[in-house]
C-alpha cells in the first residue's frame, strides 16, 4: 500500500524579498504518531532547509512552538496530523504578533508586559536566609497552583480578540500570573501590582470573551483569573468608599 500523505499549507515570509506573507504547500507522510512539529522538521530536513520556526522541548513544556493551526492557536508539538486528515493543514504564525520570518513572531510586546505585573514573590519584610524558607500548607499552595502552570506559550494572546484590537491590553497570561502571585500566601505584593493590574490596560480591558481559556494547553484559565481579580478590585473599591480612612 502506498504511504498515505497529507498537505501542509505553510506561511512563508522573508522580510528582504516578500512584501507580504505568502503560502507554500508541502506534502508530508501522514504517520499516526506524527505531530505538526514533526512534519515541519521533516520539511526542513528533507525538502526546504530555509523554513524557519521555533521549537525546543517537543513535550509541551517550553512553550516555544505555538502556531495557528487551521486558524486556532495550538502547540504544534502536541497537535497530531491525524486530527486534520485528510487535510490540507494550514500552519500560520501566532495571530496578533508581528511576523519576523516564516512562522517566527516578534514577542517583544509580551516580554515587555510581563515584568510590569511583577510576577515574582514581592516581600515587604525580607527574612534573612538563616530564617529558612517561607512555608506554606498544601491548602495554601492549592489556591494558586492552577495559575502557576503557565508556560508562556502566548496562545492566549493569539486567541484574544481584545488584544488583537487593543494591543495596549496587558493580556491574559501576564494578568493570570499576577493573580497567581496575589493568591500566594508568601507574597505581599498585591498593592504594588495594582497600578498595572487594575489599570484601564489591565483587567478592565477584558470583556470576558473567554477564548484564552479555551486555547490554553495547560488549563490555566486566564479568563477566570481576570474575573477573580475584577471581583477583588471591586471589593477594594467598595471598601475604600465605605471605609476611606482604613488602610488599603
Amino acid at each position: 500500500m502506498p504511504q498515505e500523505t497529507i498537505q501542509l499549507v505553510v506561511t512563508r515570509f522573508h522580510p528582504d524579498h516578500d512584501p507580504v506573507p505568502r503560502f507554500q504547500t508541502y506534502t508530508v507522510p501522514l504517520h499516526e504518531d506524527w505531530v505538526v512539529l514533526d512534519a515541519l522538521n521533516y520539511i526542513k530536513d528533507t525538502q526546504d532547509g530555509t523554513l524557519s520556526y521555533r521549537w525546543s522541548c517537543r513535550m509541551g513544556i517550553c512553550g516555544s512552538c505555538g502556531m495557528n493551526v487551521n486558524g486556532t492557536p495550538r502547540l504544534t508539538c502536541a497537535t497530531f496530523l491525524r486530527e486534520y486528515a485528510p487535510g490540507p493543514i494550514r500552519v500560520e504564525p501566532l495571530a496578533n504578533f508581528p511576523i519576523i520570518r516564516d512562522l517566527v513572531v516578534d514577542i517583544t510586546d509580551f516580554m515587555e508586559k510581563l515584568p510590569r505585573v511583577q510576577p515574582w514573590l514581592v516581600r515587604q519584610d525580607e527574612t534573612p536566609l538563616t530564617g529558612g524558607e517561607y512555608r506554606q500548607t498544601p491548602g495554601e499552595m492549592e489556591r494558586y497552583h492552577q495559575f502557576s502552570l503557565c508556560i508562556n506559550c502566548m496562545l492566549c494572546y493569539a486567541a484574544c480578540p481584545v488584544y488583537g484590537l487593543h494591543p495596549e491590553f496587558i493580556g491574559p497570561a501576564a494578568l493570570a500570573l499576577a493573580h497567581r502571585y496575589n493568591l500566594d500566601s508568601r507574597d505581599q505584593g498585591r498593592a504594588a501590582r495594582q497600578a498595572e493590574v487594575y489599570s484601564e490596560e489591565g483587567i478592565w480591558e477584558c470583556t470576558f470573551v473567554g477564548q484564552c481559556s479555551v486555547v490554553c494547553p495547560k488549563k490555566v484559565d486566564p479568563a477566570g483569573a481576570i474575573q477573580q481579580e475584577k471581583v477583588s478590585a471591586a471589593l477594594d473599591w467598595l471598601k475604600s468608599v465605605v471605609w476611606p480612612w482604613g488602610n488599603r
Partner: protein
Amino acid sequence: MAHASRSEPFWWSLFAAGGVVAAFLVPIHVLLEGIVGPLGGPTPAADYDRMHAWLASPFTRVYLFVLISLPLFHWAHRFRFTLADLGLSRFGAWLAVLCYGAAIVGTALAAWLLITAP
C-alpha cells in the same frame, strides 16, 4: 505610568450585579408575569386589579426598581465595550457618557414612575 482605575470598579460592579439580575430574576419575572399570569395563572399579572394591588406595596416598587435599573447598567457597560470593539474606541469618554448616561436616565425615569404611580 499606569494607575489603578477608580471608575471602572464602580461601573463593573453595576454591570456584574445587573448581569445577575438579568440572568436569574428577569427570566423568572418574564415567565411568571409575562406567560403564567396572562394564561390565567395565580400571579399578579392575571388582571389589572391584582396588578394594581400588587404595586401598592413598597416592596414591589423596590423590586421593580432593581429589576429595571441594574440590567440597564449591565447593558450600558456591555454596549460601551461593543462600540469600542467596533472601532469607536477613540471616542472612549463619549461612549461612556452616552451608555451610562442612558442607563442613568432610564433609572431616574423608572424611579420617578415608581414613586409617583398611584
